[in-house]
């Protein structure tokens, strides 16, 4: 599904990532873990086109998308959520999800200002679809609330609903459990499994090891900008290099 080949990134003189190479298998939940400063978020930013890699390639289903802007990647089915939740704060919850349906609709400047008949029916379809996604995430009752006033947990759910509205092939989640309490985390785990069951491949960066070990099929471990290990959760748990990186030398 997604393949990273020899990814490297430098900021000025600082090397943030080097020689990152792995694949995310279709239909899997892949976890990317590593200590703070390992370069996980940088890797996500490169995968989603927030900035280009200094070297290497990002391949989505065989297509080289390294130089594509984020909006084009989104159309190809590569969507992400953010660590600190990037909602459209002044819009309602429903409208946020309706923006997520942007790629599923097409009315342009002209059709919208003249209220063409096809635009009106498309608008109805968008609204219905958006309501369905709110139900999927279990936040239907919040539809008309301004998104900026949501709690962190609800905001996270909205962000996921909005991302799902794009009907992505691959969903990248940047620390989805950050800031959630244990009950919310358990609900999140269920939600992520339901997303996978809908045929969406998931890759996530996460610190919460219980969550990662519970839901992930494959893990990639980064440390100081390089690949440390790759394998199933069980293999990683027994990997000596990983244990050293996390716990330090004995």
């Amino acid at each position: 599904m997604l393949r990273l080949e020899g990814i490297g990134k430098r900021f000025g003189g600082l090397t943030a990532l080097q020689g990152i190479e792995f694949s995310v298998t279709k239909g899997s939940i892949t976890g990317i873990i590593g200590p703070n400063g390992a370069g996980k978020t940088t890797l996500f930013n490169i995968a989603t086109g927030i900035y280009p890699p200094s070297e290497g390639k990002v391949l989505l289903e065989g297509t080289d998308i390294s130089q594509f802007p984020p909006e084009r990647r989104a159309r190809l089915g590569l969507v992400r959520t953010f660590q600190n939740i990037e909602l459209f704060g002044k819009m309602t919850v429903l409208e946020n999800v309706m923006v997520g349906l942007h790629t599923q609709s097409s009315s342009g400047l002209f059709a919208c200002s003249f209220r063409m008949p096809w635009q009106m029916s498309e608008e109805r379809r968008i609204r219905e679809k958006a309501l369905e996604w709110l139900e999927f995430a279990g936040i239907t009752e919040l539809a008309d609330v301004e998104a900026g006033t949501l709690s962190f947990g609800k905001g996270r759910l909205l962000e996921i609903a909005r991302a799902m509205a794009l009907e992505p092939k691959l969903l990248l989640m940047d620390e989805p459990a950050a800031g959630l309490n244990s009950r919310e985390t358990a609900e999140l785990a269920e939600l992520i499994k339901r997303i996978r069951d809908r045929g969406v491949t998931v890759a996530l960066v996460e610190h919460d090891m219980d969550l990662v070990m519970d839901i992930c099929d494959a893990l990639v471990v980064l440390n100081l900008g390089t690949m440390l290990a790759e394998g199933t959760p069980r293999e990683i748990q027994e990997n000596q290099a990983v244990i050293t990186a996390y716990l330090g030398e004995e």
Partner: protein
Amino acid sequence: MKSDKLKFLIFCLVVLVLPLPLAKGYLTNVLIFVGINSMLALGLNLLLGYAGQISLGQAAFFGLGAYGSGVLTTKYALDPWLSMVLVALVVAGFAFAIGFPVLRLKGHYLAMATLGVGVIAHIAFNETIDLTGGPSGLSGIPNLSIAGFSFDSDLKNYYLVWSFALVVILLCLNLVNSRYGRGLRAIHDSEVAARVMGVNARLMKVQIFTLSAFISAIAGSLYCHVMTFISPTSFGFNISVELLTMVVIGGLGSVYGSILGALLLTLLPELLRTFQDYDIVVYGLLLVCMTIYLPGGMVRGIPALVRRLVPARSGNA
């Protein structure tokens, strides 16, 4: 949806009957300019209030529209309607072309770049004396007419300008409550998130910049035919700031707010006529105070203020 339509119909009705009690009074004349300023403020509001992109060069597009129509009809005897369309298209094309480099900039840099465009246009109006008449202005611009019916009185021009303004208002209302409008507001709230959601932010910003230039150019053409005389002072930096003030005091991201802003700021100088030159001080105070105390503008701030005061009173009783 229903109430939006009703609101617009009521507004149309008000516009229709407003000049009747005023008869031939000079207030009708002022209301013409309220109409023109409404169009300009709306154009800026689409850009600033919805897409969150500032422009301090709106007067340039207004001026290009006015001078384009003025020059084509006086020097080349072109049909006014034809030249209005031509000029609006050319100005929109120009905005589209400069839109790509300009709107790559953000915040303060964007403000300075658009300001630069505005100042250069203003200098050009002053210096291309052969075409524009320079600082002494361009006169003898014909009134608009349809099949022999000439728009030569205040009342006629009032209906002419306001029919344009109402169309613009309706189109803007449609636009902001649509897929496209949501895309713009998403860009305003978080450009990165909007792009990750598949919103083509770069293109949409340029498109809306182009549309606002197009509306401003039409307003400029109308202005020159209503006035029959134009000079560069009507298209300087101060005008761009005045438009900004209208949008801010009316309410960023509110269509009717822009009209309210245009109304207030067009009437204000008339009311302050006895204290000439005070208006610039008042604009300054308004901009500073509104931004600090009523950042949502009048359309949102005043209802909120009333809500806050009314329960407080009932609470005491």
